[in-house]
């Protein structure tokens, strides 16, 4: 029994072992390159274990705290891929904190561990603990540069994160108080047992729902909990920003989808209730993200607002899940496909930015002028990712939007899709402004932009997947559909 559970935990355990190994090795080893190899090895081993469990029948472990199922496994793989790509891409950046490399790698691995547990968490307590595990690592990572901006970013992230954690806990407490359970399926069962009129008239339950949505809203950067995003994105080391923008957001969506669907999807009425709430928040989030991004001159801040806008599109999918009330899986699988697409696209863009800003020592968009001549491959890759973020063929971004929008239209959210499409048009303006300055301007200097092979490998992988998901989506969609199958039972 114990052995069986340990076997199901091998992805997490192996990652933990390697994270500790990185810290220990740092004490004895002079050649710090070894640490990168060990970290990447840890990720590969963990990914290997994850794949060895692939296709498993959903199993509860640790007294139903965690559930090992296809949904969790897919997210684990996404986090591992993101962490691996970020570590590879950090090689061009690492000189800024060379002394503390081992801590950096270990923290990236541990936060990934936290996210993996989040995706598997099946109990509100487990959700909260794993959330904190990943968040605290990220607070430290955000302030890793130790200059004024980075410290400020870390501190803001920590304090606002604490506020949101408190909000989340209040919400969980209310739900626990009403139903007497912290385990998600048990809460759902108990809600199903209540008469609908009771649920409708229960302010505590609805307040709990709102507070929980707000708590995760912070994590996924939804309005009105998005204020931290631009400041933290700008101040944090660029690889950490990349990591925050994809892995942390994906983890937020992994949990919020599970909580909302399993707990609050218990009755169709409740499900459509939060569906509408998310839909309204999604519309505002898209508008704010895109409109404010228009007037940014710093590329990292711009990507901060862009990531808010992308969260808005993802929430369109989430709203579709709510409105569907379990009747079809299009919204859920679309959401997962969008997350896969967004992970590769946004990471690809950030990896190119890491290389370019490193050389320029600037994050100003105007300094990217003529980059196609100084770094043609980086410029091509960044252009491809921007095209994907806009949602144009032949990239992943287009197919992802098609899936999500289609799911929303099928469940009476046509108005939201219209807003989302208008927003896509607005977003083209600021994404393509970067493309324009890169390709049409004359460069300020002819100096080439250097990049390490590790970064190039990471960037090529991202671009490859952006194209693969865009050209041959059916296989990836199949994976997403298999992952959300675990929910169809409830």
């Amino acid at each position, binding site marked *: 029994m114990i052995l069986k559970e340990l076997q199901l935990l091998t992805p997490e355990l192996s990652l933990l072992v390697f994270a500790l190994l990185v810290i220990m090795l740092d004490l004895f080893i002079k050649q710090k390159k070894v640490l990168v190899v060990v970290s990447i090895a840890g990720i590969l081993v963990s990914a290997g274990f994850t794949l060895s469990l692939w296709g498993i029948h959903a199993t509860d472990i640790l007294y139903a705290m965690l559930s090992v199922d296809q949904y969790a496994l897919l997210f684990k793989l996404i986090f591992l891929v993101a962490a691996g790509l970020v570590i590879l891409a950090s090689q061009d950046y690492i000189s800024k904190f060379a002394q503390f490399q081992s801590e950096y790698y270990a923290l990236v691995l541990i936060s990934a561990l936290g996210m993996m547990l989040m995706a598997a968490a099946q109990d509100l307590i487990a959700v909260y603990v794993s959330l904190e595990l990943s968040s605290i690592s990220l607070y430290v990572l955000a302030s890793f540069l130790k200059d004024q901006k980075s410290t400020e970013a870390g*501190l803001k992230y920590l304090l606002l994160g604490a506020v949101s954690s408190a909000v989340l806990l209040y919400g969980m407490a209310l739900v626990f108080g009403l139903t007497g359970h912290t385990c998600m399926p048990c809460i759902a069962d108990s809600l199903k047992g209540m008469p609908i009129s009771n649920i409708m008239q229960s302010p505590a339950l609805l307040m709990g729902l709102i*507070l929980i949505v707000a708590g995760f809203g912070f994590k996924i950067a939804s309005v*009105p909990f998005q204020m931290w995003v631009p400041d933290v994105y700008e101040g944090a080391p660029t690889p950490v920003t990349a990591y925050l923008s994809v892995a942390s957001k994906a983890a937020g969506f992994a949990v919020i989808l599970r909580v909302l669907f399993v707990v609050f999807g218990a009755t169709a009425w409740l499900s459509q209730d939060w569906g509408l709430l998310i839909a309204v928040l999604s519309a505002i989030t898209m508008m704010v993200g895109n*409109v404010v991004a*228009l007037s940014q001159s710093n590329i990292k801040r711009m990507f901060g607002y862009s990531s808010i806008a992308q969260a808005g599109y993802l929430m369109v999918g989430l709203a579709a899940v709510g409105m569907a009330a379990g009747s079809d899986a299009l919204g859920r699988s679309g959401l997962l496909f969008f997350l896969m697409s967004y992970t590769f696209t946004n990471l690809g863009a950030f990896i190119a930015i890491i290389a370019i800003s490193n050389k320029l020592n600037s994050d100003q968009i105007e300094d990217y002028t003529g980059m196609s001549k100084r770094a043609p491959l980086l410029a091509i890759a960044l252009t491809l990712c921007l095209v994907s973020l806009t949602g144009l063929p032949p990239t992943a971004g287009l197919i992802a939007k098609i899936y999500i929008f289609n799911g929303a239209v099928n469940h009476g959210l046509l108005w939201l899709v219209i807003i989302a499409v208008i927003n896509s048009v607005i977003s083209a303006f600021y994404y393509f402004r970067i493309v324009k300055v890169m390709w049409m301007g004359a460069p300020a200097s002819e100096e080439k932009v250097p990049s390490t092979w590790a970064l190039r490998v990471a960037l090529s992988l991202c671009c490859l997947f952006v194209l693969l998901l865009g050209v041959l989506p059916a296989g990836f969609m199949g994976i997403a559909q298999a992952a959300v199958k675990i929910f169809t039972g409830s």
Partner: protein
Amino acid sequence: MPYQIPWLIFLLPVCSLLIIAFILRPFFNNRPKLGGYVTIAAISTACALSLWVLATVIAAPGHKLDIPDFQWLVIGNLNVHFGLLIDSLTAVMLVVVTIVSLMVQIYSQGYMDGDSGYHRYFAFMSLFTACMLGLIMADNLVLMFLFWEGVGLGSYLLIGFWFHRPSAANAAKKAFIVTRLGDVGFLVAILLLFAQTGTFDTEELHALAIAGTLGGTVLTWVAIGIFSGAAGKSAQFPLHVWLPDAMEGPTPVSALIHAATMVAAGVFLVARFHPLFEHSEVALTTVAIIGGFTAIFAASMGLVMTDIKRVLAYSTISQLGYMMLGLGTGGVAIGIFHLFNHAFFKALLFLGAGSVNHGTGTFDMRQMGGLRKAMPWTYATFLIGSLSLAGIWPLSGFWSKDEIVASALDKPILFYIAMLTVFMTAFYMFRAIFLTFEGEYKGGAPAEHGSHGPNNSYGPHESSKVMVIPLVILSVLSVFSGWLNVTGAFSSFMGHGGEVEAHGFIQGFFGVLSHPVPLISLAVAALGVFLAYAMYSARWISAEVMGRIFKPMYVLFSRKYWMDELYENVIVKKVLINGVFAVLGLFDEKAIDGAINGVANGTVAAGRELRRLQTGQLQFYAMFIVLGLVAITVCYYIFA
């Protein structure tokens, strides 16, 4: 046969394209011959596999192979899949395309020798062949349309291959734009079909049309839309104007794309969706009438052209019209049989014209003459091609042309048109032969004309072996390919088994001469040959005198019925540029730009204002979270 084989046929030219573009061009640019070898290796393998597929299809029950689908995109009820439809029509087309393509690639090694764009040429040829193979194997309309545009792209790139010549660049644009006009109709038909039936799948659409679920006016409009796409690609009246100009491309390109395969894609498309046409009398009649009219209309212009490639171009348009006529009156087997034969002899004729050009440096027949002795192989093969095209018994063109003429028998007007076209065809082909190969050599090209390396200092000379061998192979096919249907085997393979009376080979071979229709058409063709002989070889009749007598007609034909002028000066300049575009431009400038700029400025201004909320103050951020929470809660309780 493993089901991967058809996929492999498609992937082979794709691979040769990728190898040339990403390996040979960047790293082996100093060894251009490699590009030709890679392409020929890929296409000869594809050709062998196509023959295997053909053999398998002949043996298969129902002449159809089941190839598992490959899911591409599934959104809700919309299921777009990559699938292959391998039936008798596809198998025949595969063989035609790969054989002609192989011959053309081998020939191109000699023709393009020394050209600075050698790699680029073979890369584009591979691209075109891949798209063409994809088009004929696709099992749904989406994929078909993709490759349909792909062959259009290949054609555009190859017509404009010598893009530094303005005439080539313009011809490429013209070809692309004119065929695009037809494609609009095709696209509308695809969307209409999907809206009506919810499927893109070819066979499902066939079944719906046969069952009558898809019928009436909708079916007619769909069929006409499909035909408009086909008319664009196959250069049917009134969209024929691009094909003669497309002769600006290298001659092997004209042989492959603008004679044997791509222009035949229109005919293939109508054949592929023939069950839809069969259930709409209007559409089928439209196909027959447009086809018949194009046949005679283009042939009349071919009578007076002085450029040998243009004669062949008008002949191609005319023969494509024939095929359409055959599809409209007789059915798939008849139209495709002519396509099959035509591909070989017309490719042969174009390659022969290229060989002549290689020897003399010109395409102008007035500067040729007497080449029979200097270029015996080219002459012999060109003569075989011409006899076949003119429909002389027992060469291949006779058999398919005879079927088309016979099938038009119950529509008297179309029948007379077909007969008249037979006469014209024989006349213009033998006019070309007598002008080019007989009489005295008139000196070839003036010095500045030689665009790609023919060496005039030696006088006219036979082309190299690498060019002559494809000519010989194609001439053998031009003699014998028509014999496949002497016993009715081809027709029954194409699915007309019930209607065709099967008979022995000898009986069919000679018995056909006992029927009146083939005899009349043979006599008419012979008359055409004789008239050409009398005018251009024996000179019993002076061509100048004839020209003066029929002056109005001569001018009409040689000015191409003023169609180019009509399109350019009247429709494009007067109606579109000065009329429609001017009004739209004004609307765009004032109304649309105004609105867009207004919205854009408003959005940017909103962004600037909203940005002010981002104060950087932590207390304010925390307060915003709390206020946001309160706002959500209040709204929630008010509205829920």
